[in-house]
């Protein structure tokens, strides 16, 4: 199956990035990935950690290139542009890059004009080719095959049908194509059959189901940008399931019809001809692409006539569908086109780091100390939890093991179980806690620590809602604080924290930290974040060895709570 990677899929950004690169490097023989990264960041066409421009560039600098988001962004666009034949590798490696003759036309076209050329470049994508290393073996002009498949499948397809359909076929083999259509049709009509077919595909490739799914993102984006397909929900393809499908548009249908009339030349056939014919095919391929995209080929008409005569037997009175820059190396194309590239040095970009650093996690340690903390024994839930902890302790388990057992036991907890459980843990710590009733619009927090001075709203996320505490929870914690201060339902102070409690700490710790700092700086409020494991460590320590903990640290918590077991 063709593995389209998952790079920048947004048409307007692709075009803008390309035009900006052209502005900067059109007078250079080549440009590097660093050059691209610099331009993309400078023109604010990417963001990193919530920043754009030079700050994004600075923040994304790491020693490990694969973690450098700006460079990865540049690589992603380089891949799309190479796939579309707008840039090509200079020399034997993947980089540096140079603009192609088609790329020059794209860069100089206005917004409306560029679409028609973009379409031709999308149709030009084919395999095998000599410009990129790929992991698949299918011999296919994918977008042509996809459009024809849409036509044969009543103009509508589900995205995964692309995977076990035109992404997995050698389209020049008419019998194979026919068998593919027959199979697609035989799977239709039952969701269970679709599931089986998709699973079989994944098994045969030894990949997880997400890989083929991700591989559809770029082709779908291409087809939508060209206006060939649009989304349409349907439950008729694989009943009873309603799925978001793709519907072939009138324009897509017209495109499919028009390419049927062309002589579709692929690499293998191209290589079978002698040098003179190959050069003629290169020129004809490029000029016919431009002609279909609405360019006036009159100035090169004599060349076209001559080359058409040379290739008469191959073309058989048809126009040519062959995109040289997307199939063979740039030097061979340039030689046929008479393009001489000056061997001036490439530009290299010096990246200077701006004064912005990634924010490390905001960790606040809550100190446990020896003490004589009393657990509320009048509370049935607390009592039951205490007994459970004590019984585990009686089995000579360490606190850390007890915490792990209880923690693991909550992985599938829904809101109705998790919210009261979190509230109970705070009661173990000696707080008075109230869980909000579902649908109570007056109390937007999920629970609240009630105190004579420092009431604390708690935003809780159960592991079935989200396993890792998200930015959303932090935003809700801020809203809880604002509401509590505004509505005065419980006494509190601006300095008192507002808590977000969830199963795991956030995945993107840096961005959550930044947001907590932003809230503090803008509004002066502290948001504290506690994961279940940390909360359990405190609660179990209190029960097992009567530890007391620093209540003030919790009341003023800003950032992530951390605790070390004694």
């Amino acid at each position: 199956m063709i593995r389209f990677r998952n790079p920048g899929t947004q048409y307007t950004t692709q075009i803008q990035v390309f035009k900006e690169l052209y502005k900067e490097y059109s007078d250079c023989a080549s440009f590097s990935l660093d050059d691209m990264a610099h331009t993309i960041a400078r023109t604010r066409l990417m963001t990193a950690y919530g920043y754009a421009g030079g700050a994004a560039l600075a923040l994304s600098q790491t020693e490990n290139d694969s973690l450098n988001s700006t460079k990865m962004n540049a690589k992603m666009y380089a891949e799309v542009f190479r796939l579309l034949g707008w840039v090509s590798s200079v020399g034997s490696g993947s980089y540096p890059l140079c603009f192609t003759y088609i790329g020059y036309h794209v860069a100089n076209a206005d917004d409306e004009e560029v679409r028609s050329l973009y379409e031709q470049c999308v149709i030009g994508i084919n395999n095998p080719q000599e410009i990129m290393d790929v992991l698949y073996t299918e011999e296919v002009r994918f977008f042509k095959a996809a459009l024809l498949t849409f036509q044969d499948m009543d103009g509508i397809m589900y995205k995964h049908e692309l995977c076990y359909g035109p992404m997995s076929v050698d389209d020049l083999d008419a019998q194979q194509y026919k068998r593919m259509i027959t199979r697609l049709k035989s799977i239709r009509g039952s969701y269970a059959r679709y599931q089986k077919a998709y699973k079989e595909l994944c098994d045969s490739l030894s990949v997880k189901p997400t890989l083929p799914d991700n591989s559809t993102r770029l082709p779908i984006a291409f087809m939508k940008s060209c206006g060939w397909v649009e989304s349409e929900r349907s439950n008729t393809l694989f009943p009873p399931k309603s799925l978001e499908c793709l519907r072939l548009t009138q324009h897509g249908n017209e495109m499919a019809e028009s390419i049927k009339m062309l002589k579709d030349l692929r690499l293998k056939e191209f290589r079978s001809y002698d040098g003179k014919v190959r050069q003629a095919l290169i020129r004809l391929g490029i000029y016919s692409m431009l002609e279909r995209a609405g360019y006036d080929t009159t100035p090169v008409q004599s060349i076209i006539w001559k080359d058409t005569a040379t290739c008469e037997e191959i073309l058989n009175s048809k126009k040519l569908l062959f995109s040289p820059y997307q199939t063979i190396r740039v030097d061979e194309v340039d030689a046929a086109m008479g393009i001489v590239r000056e061997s001036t040095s490439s530009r290299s970009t010096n990246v200077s780091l701006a004064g912005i650093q990634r924010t490390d996690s905001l960790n606040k340690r809550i100190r446990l100390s020896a003490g004589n903390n009393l657990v509320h024994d009048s509370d049935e839930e607390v009592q039951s939890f205490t007994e459970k902890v004590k019984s585990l302790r009686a089995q000579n388990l360490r606190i850390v093991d007890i915490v792990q057992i209880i923690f693991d036991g909550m992985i599938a907890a829904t809101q109705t179980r998790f919210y009261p459980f979190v509230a109970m843990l705070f009661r173990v710590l000696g707080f008075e806690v109230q869980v909000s009733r579902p649908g109570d619009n007056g109390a937007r927090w999920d629970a609240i620590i009630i105190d004579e001075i420092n009431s604390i709203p708690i935003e809780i996320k159960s592991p079935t809602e989200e396993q890792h505490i998200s930015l959303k929870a932090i935003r809700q914690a801020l809203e809880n604080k604002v509401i509590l201060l505004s509505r005065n339902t419980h006494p509190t102070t601006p300095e008192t924290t507002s808590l977000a409690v969830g199963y795991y700490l956030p995945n993107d710790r840096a961005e959550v930290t930044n947001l907590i700092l932003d809230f503090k700086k803008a509004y002066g409020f502290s948001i504290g974040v506690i994961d279940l494991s940390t909360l359990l460590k405190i609660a179990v320590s209190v029960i097992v060895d009567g530890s007391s903990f620093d209540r003030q640290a919790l009341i003023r918590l800003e950032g992530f709570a951390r605790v070390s077991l004694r």
Partner: protein
Amino acid sequence: MSLLDRNDRRKHLTVFRSIFPRDIEQTYNEPARLLLSEEWVISSCMSCDDPPCMRLSEHEIECPEFPEFSYERDFSVCPVRAIRWSYESETPEIDNRLCIGCGLCAVRCPVGAIYRKDNHMGVVRRRSEQYTVRIPYTRSGVEKQRGQLTIVNKIAWKHRFQKESDQIMRKIYHALSNVDGRSMIPNLLVRNLLISLGYKCAISRSGDVYTRIDAVYSGKASWDKTLGAIEIEFGRDTLDASRSILDDIAVLHSRSNIDKDRNCAMVVCLSFPNKRQGYFQVIKDIKNVLGLEIQTLSLGALLILTWNSSIINLGKKEFYADFDHLSIRQATEFRLGRTINISEGCLGILEPKK
């Protein structure tokens, strides 16, 4: 190696012969009329060099006041791409099957040659031979036309695209209900409406998951220092909009030095949230605790203001509504200078639905 030209190149432009319009006026659902000499003449398409009815300019879709904001470079005026250039007639052409009737193209026409009648958009192509002439599309021709349009743009007149009604608004809202929720159409629509109302507006890039701010805006005139963040919420999760806008204000305050008290932030929604949803109560809480007045505007209100070339002042927070005052009807009528022809609660355009 030289590049090829396109077949479909522009060949002509239209310019005024020797008399320029002294005044322009328009009535709803009709093309504008130009006062040429002492005669009112129906306006016609000038075949502008860079047609403002189709394309926004770089300075309109960028807000330099927000240097860290990574913004979308889609220059289209029409959010659904219903307007295209016809190289045959050398005028814009509107596909009425795609058009949602927002009127953005019409209100950007410098001479009011685009209008809506009988539910169809039209472009006046038949021009007055007496007052206008077609000239070749050359550098000097383009300069001549630009010079003339600069003079025309100085005429103080107001577009009158169409008079609002419940029925018209329902049609537009219905058309938008079919839009893919993940598409850029809502954001493009809001951006372009604000631009038509005299602001610069930038929206976050399509597919940029790292920028949480939907849009930013700032005053177009150098003296207008108004600026702010915008959350665009065409779905039902308006509570998320109030949280998001607090996030936006804090991020801009902390990371981009846009003081929170200077940020005239607003939420643009399709319909005003229901009173019971809690959104307006939270907006009131935000004002109570943080002293921030978050304005709420609906798409419908923006459309009506745009169709009438109204001048609004977002810096004065005139579209602030909260739990104690749930309507922007009064503010909208003040800017329209007349009573608004939308029934109470209709689509949640000026107040929550009944």
